[in-house]
């Protein structure tokens, strides 16, 4: 489950589709055809789903029909249930993520910028990251009861590792040539950290943040389904008792949308903060 915290470069994901479409656009009509196929196949699946439900091949006790999901979503929004639960879930995710960002970044700075700090901080964190955080749920309930604390802390704990690991790696792998350059320019240690080390580690930090957001939702789903009186996860568990597959699927969709939105948010942050990275590298080309 903590696979997500491995510092590998998922940020290439968005790039590869760009490259692909760039390649394809050179071959004339191909992209338009591809675009159509892209939307046709999911739409066909939804149609098939709706058809099977209407005809009765799929029991609505197992899966609600798409039309039912839309109506349910609409009514949940009208009576405010969805907003209330969504608000609670968002609050938990945001508080947990904020703690994770703060703790992860501070720890990474300590262990990235000093040898002693690394000895003290890095070893325990490397050991702890191999533990499945979700296995701590029973312990967290024992320690913190069933209020907001264990949920927020679970999110925070899970999301801290990707932030720490990626930022630490970023700080440690700053191009030594740039550090040498800073030295020959007579930059002080503080200036070097501010102007060279931190900006150089920023791309890795953002990769970490993206993982952290993913992990945060995962943690939240589990935390809210195990014990909660509110939140999207609670709404879904409640629905289970009444065999309301439509509400469960609405919850699933909300989680999906939240994941998508937050990922796009971080991506937007990347484009904004890393404006210095040219979209198409043209090094060595003559201007």
């Amino acid at each position, binding site marked *: 489950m903590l696979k997500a915290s491995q510092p590998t470069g998922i940020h290439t994901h968005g790039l590869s589709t760009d490259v692909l479409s760039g390649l394809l656009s050179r071959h004339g009509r191909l992209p338009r055809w591809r675009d159509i196929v892209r939307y046709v196949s999911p739409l066909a699946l939804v149609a098939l789903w709706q058809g099977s439900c209407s005809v009765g091949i799929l029991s609505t006790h197992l899966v609600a029909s798409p039309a039912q999901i839309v109506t349910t979503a609409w009514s949940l929004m009208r009576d405010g249930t969805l907003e209330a639960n969504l608000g609670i879930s968002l609050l938990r995710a945001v508080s947990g993520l904020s703690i994770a960002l703060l703790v992860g970044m501070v720890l990474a700075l300590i262990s990235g910028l000093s040898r002693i700090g690394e000895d003290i901080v890095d070893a325990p964190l490397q050991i702890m990251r191999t533990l499945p955080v979700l296995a701590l749920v029973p312990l967290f309930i024992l320690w913190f009861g069933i209020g907001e604390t264990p949920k927020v802390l679970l999110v925070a704990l899970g999301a801290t590792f990707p932030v720490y690991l990626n930022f630490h790696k970023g700080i440690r792998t700053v191009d030594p040539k740039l550090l040498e350059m800073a030295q020959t320019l007579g*930059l002080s240690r503080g200036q070097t950290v501010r102007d060279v080390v931190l900006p150089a580690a920023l791309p890795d930090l953002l990769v970490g943040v993206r993982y952290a957001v993913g992990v945060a939702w995962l943690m939240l789903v589990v935390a809210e389904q195990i014990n909660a009186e509110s939140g999207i996860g609670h709404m879904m568990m409640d629905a289970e008792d009444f065999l309301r597959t439509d509400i469960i699927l609405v919850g699933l969709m909300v989680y999906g949308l939240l994941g998508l939105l937050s990922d796009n948010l971080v991506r937007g942050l990347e484009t904004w903060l890393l404006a210095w990275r040219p979209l198409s590298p043209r090094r060595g080309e003559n201007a």
Partner: protein
Amino acid sequence: MSTLSSPAQTRPGPMVNAVDATVTVTGLTRRFANGPAVLDGLDLHIAPGEFVALLGRSGSGKSTLLRMLSGLDPVTEGSVHRPDDVAVVFQESRLLPWRRVWQNVVLGQKKDDSVRARAEAVLQEVGLAHRSEAWPLTLSGGEAQRAALARALVREPDLLMLDEPFAALDALSRLRMQRLVAGLWQRHRCAVLLVTHDVDEAVLLADRAVVLESGRIRTDLAIPLDRPRRHTDPQFEQFRQTLLDALGVHDD
């Protein structure tokens, strides 16, 4: 002036004209992990405003010498006497990708009102004024090297060290850069130590060419040609041949 020297100086070394020299290197020795000495009791003087080309085979220790002169590596044996204001340009531009070109140029400089103007002025000098707002990763190789040169010049160093600064450039850009460096040097009159593999470049630019071999300066060749120099000059060819011989390269 600052003097970097080992706690126990092994050789006193000649102190002749050390007083007025910009750089005085005496008995400098450097070895890596108890291997053979890369620099072995090296002596070198550079007069104020003098343009010295440093040649030598690959692995002869040119970069090692430059690193010690620039203070990147510690002096453990021998002594190095050099001005406080030195600037280095490496083979790669080493610009910070997250700072605009002009910000890179004045990196580490005091941030007063005139800082931007100084950056613009020196970028103008290297012909890069139109790119001052650009991100470094969008520069061409030649432009990036000119930016690095501007960053060195804005500090008005007494000693400018260049470690194969044009090696990665195409022939045409290299010619343009050589002309640029010659012009800049005539205006700024700082001492220059240029590491190069290119004998033509050495003869074209330098007052003196020194060849590093087995840890010491084995050849020290003054090049008293008038400037601007032409490749077609018979004397040019003569100096070129002498240097090639010193490097162990012979035309048959």
